[in-house]
């Protein structure tokens, strides 16, 4: 009997401790104004001149600020560390005036010289920066970066005085300010700190540890446990600290998207990086207030190897494209609110929408194929669709395989490869049709179109067109906006007509967001300047 009593007591204790609902992490964080942010991957580093990921952007954007910053709603360039700037009439010289109260987190003033040294650093070949080409619009930057020019003084950047920086460009670059605001390669590092913790011009510098990180953004790095958490807290030396509403952000690199979703449900995260496809419908139905689907500056497409005998004829390529029911793919396969892609550049990219549009036309496709000598697909070898191993890519490839068979009578086979092997195969153009994705580095059609320049390493289709190259080069060097847009339109029309690629859909970002997060705006770069964000728990 005594034993039974004891067991009952134990059971009661367990029940009571279970019922006394614990305060979740999110509830605590709401009170403390700490944003809990699912960041998916462990950052490679927090040095803006070394990294290349999107996840790294989110963290670095709390620690560093550009001369120009992003408007939280539109992402349009607004004053950052520079309070104002002037652009010369020919669009080639930008003069930035740095704020008098812009300071590094250690109290040092932010100077024009910091930017000069930083730009020299990222362009120095020995650093091996994989993203240094973002600075190539700057005068002599490309030559210096490729080691053809060794005199750093000839770079198009100089400090006129401590607070005035002048940047000279090769050509007027319409998207320069956007790029400077949104891309970390344009942000400065505190060189005395970098020099103290290793060779500033080699990989592997250790200045990015919490004990040593010196930044100039709204937050400072306070803790970094690899694969566990990165904590940033308010930087009182930041020039606009009074208007920063969060006290900090905890970035949680949860790689498994299923675990991330469970952590969100358990009240451990304000925001997930992604949502498993299989769960989208459930959230749509039961918790639409938590689900966010934002348009994203990216295109999911297939590369076509134009040197392959079966795909040399562009009529075949067009037939393959016209036989695709893209609407059906986004509605029944991807199901994350994606938009069917009938062009390469996403619509309304900084006001640009491609005039040329592909179409869905089965009869037309059949005719094209017959004209090319393959009536009803007869005589055409099976098209091999190559993709990197993933459930989602396979589902899309299978849908396309079926559409080609049903609409054209064309057979297709599937070949998947592990990520790095897949990249190798693609670079060697050793495929027929290969899956690809492209996310714009900056909001401009050029960010997409330039990947198909004949000399671009990102082309990978064997397609080279001198007229296309000329149009883009010219667009890069005209200052008149209208004229530039026209050239880009012509280039995109030419690209879509030649069709070395098969656009399928425009990306969306599908994620979960706790309603307590305020001042969070949907935008196509998934940038949410953290200095404006704040937390407000819903009234109970």
């Amino acid at each position, binding site marked *: 009997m005594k034993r039974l009593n004891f067991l009952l007591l134990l059971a009661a204790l367990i029940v009571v*401790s*279970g019922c006394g609902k*614990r305060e*979740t*992490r999110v509830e605590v964080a709401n009170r403390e104004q700490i944003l809990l942010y699912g960041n998916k991957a*462990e950052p*490679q*580093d927090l*040095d803006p001149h*070394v990294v*290349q990921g999107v996840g790294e952007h989110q963290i670095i954007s709390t620690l560093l600020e550009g001369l120009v910053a992003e408007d939280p709603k539109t992402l349009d360039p607004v004053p950052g560390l520079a309070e104002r700037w002037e652009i010369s009439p020919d669009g080639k010289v930008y003069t930035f005036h740095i704020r008098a109260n812009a300071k590094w987190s250690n109290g040092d003033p932010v100077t024009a010289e910091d930017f000069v040294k930083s730009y020299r650093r990222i362009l120095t*070949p*020995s*650093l*091996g*920066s*994989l*993203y*240094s*080409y973002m600075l190539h619009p700057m005068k002599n930057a490309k030559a210096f*970066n*490729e*080691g053809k020019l060794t005199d750093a003084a000839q770079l198009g950047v100089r400090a006129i005085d401590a607070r005035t920086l002048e940047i000279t460009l090769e050509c007027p670059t319409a998207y320069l300010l956007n790029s400077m605001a949104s891309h970390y390669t344009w942000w400065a590092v505190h060189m005395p700190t970098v020099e103290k913790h*290793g060779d500033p011009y*080699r*990989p*592997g*510098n*250790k200045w*990015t540890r919490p004990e040593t990180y010196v930044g100039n953004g709204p937050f400072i790095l306070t803790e970094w*446990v*690899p*694969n*566990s*958490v990165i904590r940033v807290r308010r930087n009182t030396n930041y020039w606009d600290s009074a208007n920063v509403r969060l006290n900090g952000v905890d970035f*949680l690199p*949860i*790689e*498994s998207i*299923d*675990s*991330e979703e*469970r*952590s969100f*449900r*358990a009240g*451990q995260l304000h925001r997930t990086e992604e949502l498993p496809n299989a769960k989208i419908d459930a959230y749509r139905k039961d918790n639409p207030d938590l689900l966010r689907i934002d348009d994203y500056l990216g295109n999911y497409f297939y590369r076509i190897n134009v040197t392959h005998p079966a795909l040399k004829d562009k009529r075949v390529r067009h037939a393959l494209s016209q036989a695709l029911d893209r609407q059906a793919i986004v509605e029944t396969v991807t199901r994350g609110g994606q938009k069917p892609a009938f062009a390469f550049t996403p619509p309304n990219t900084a006001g640009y929408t491609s005039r040329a549009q592909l179409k869905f036309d089965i009869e037309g496709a059949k005719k094209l194929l017959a004209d090319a000598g393959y009536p009803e697909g007869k005589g055409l070898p099976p098209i091999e669709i190559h993709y990197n191993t993933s459930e989602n890519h396979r589902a899309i490839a299978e849908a396309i395989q079926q559409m080609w068979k049903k609409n054209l009578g064309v057979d297709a086979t599937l070949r998947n490869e*592990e*990520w*790095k*092997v897949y*990249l*190798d195969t693609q*670079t060697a153009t050793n495929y027929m049709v290969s899956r*690809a*994705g*492209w996310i714009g580095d900056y909001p401009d059609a050029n960010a997409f179109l330039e990947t198909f320049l004949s000399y671009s*390493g*990102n082309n*990978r289709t064997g397609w080279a067109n001198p007229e296309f190259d000329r149009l883009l080069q010219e667009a890069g060097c005209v200052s008149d906006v209208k004229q530039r847009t026209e050239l880009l339109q012509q280039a995109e029309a030419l690209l879509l007509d030649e069709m070395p690629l098969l656009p399928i859909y425009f990306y969306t970002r599908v994620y979960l967001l706790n309603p307590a997060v305020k001042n969070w705006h949907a935008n196509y770069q998934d940038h949410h300047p953290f200095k404006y964000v704040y937390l407000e728990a819903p009234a109970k």
Partner: protein
Amino acid sequence: MFRFIAARLLQTIPVLFVVATMTFFMVRVMPGGPFDSERSVPPEIKRELDAYYGLDKPVFQQYLAYLGKLVRGDLGYSIKFANRSVNETIATTFPVSLQLGGMALGLALLLGITAGVMAALRPNSALDYAASGLSMMGICLPTFVLGPLLVFAFALKLQWVNASGWFDSTDIILPAITLGIVYAAYIARLTRGGMLEILSQDFIRTARAKGASEVRIIFRHALRGGLLPVISFLGPAAAGILTGSFVIEMIFQIPGLGRHFVTSVFNRDATMITGVAVFYAALIVFFNLLVDILQVWLNPKLKY
């Protein structure tokens, strides 16, 4: 005994050498390199990076340089996470894996031996079938099913613990159970077998005839021999628990070493791959040595 250990330690040298050599060359013949990404790498930059990591030198020269550093205990710097050395990564993540693995192994031993002994005491009874059935289930249930199930029950429904992370002291509970349960099942089956064999031997009958209590018979006489199969299983099991925690670390977001063992291959992070492989090899050799010593100590039939 000292000679035995010394000899075994000496034997580990060629083993580690072979592991280091094989992983080194296998990594080199893998397609794809550490700097490949969706965005192409400019050739000038690639050249600089290759030169920095010595990847531009002939493979054999790279190999000699690598061995030279290895004998000094320097595993080099990660290529993906350029400012973290492999030694540092192991030093910070291995204690986490060890803590989790130790807890899981402890749990596995506690559950497994208890269930095994109980089953062996009443062979072919309902209790025996229940224990065997449960352990069969434990063996069959994959961790990527069990883990999320536990999270669903204890983190999402009951809200007793967190769904992921490595922050609170309670964060170890679910992953340790998930990781330990499979091994508990194996241990239960091995214990049952070992105990059944021992319990039918003459010296146990003698003990019973002398009037020794059942408790004394089990703990004093039977367990020592009955656990021998478990002990020989422990070497590979300990190594398996420590290396096999990749899935668990992903499910529960634990900053352990197991994930580096796997992700470094996806990243083609040559130094990390070879470094972690050699470290794990050393660990396995060490555990096997430990088990050999234990076995001789427990089994009077063996000698050093």
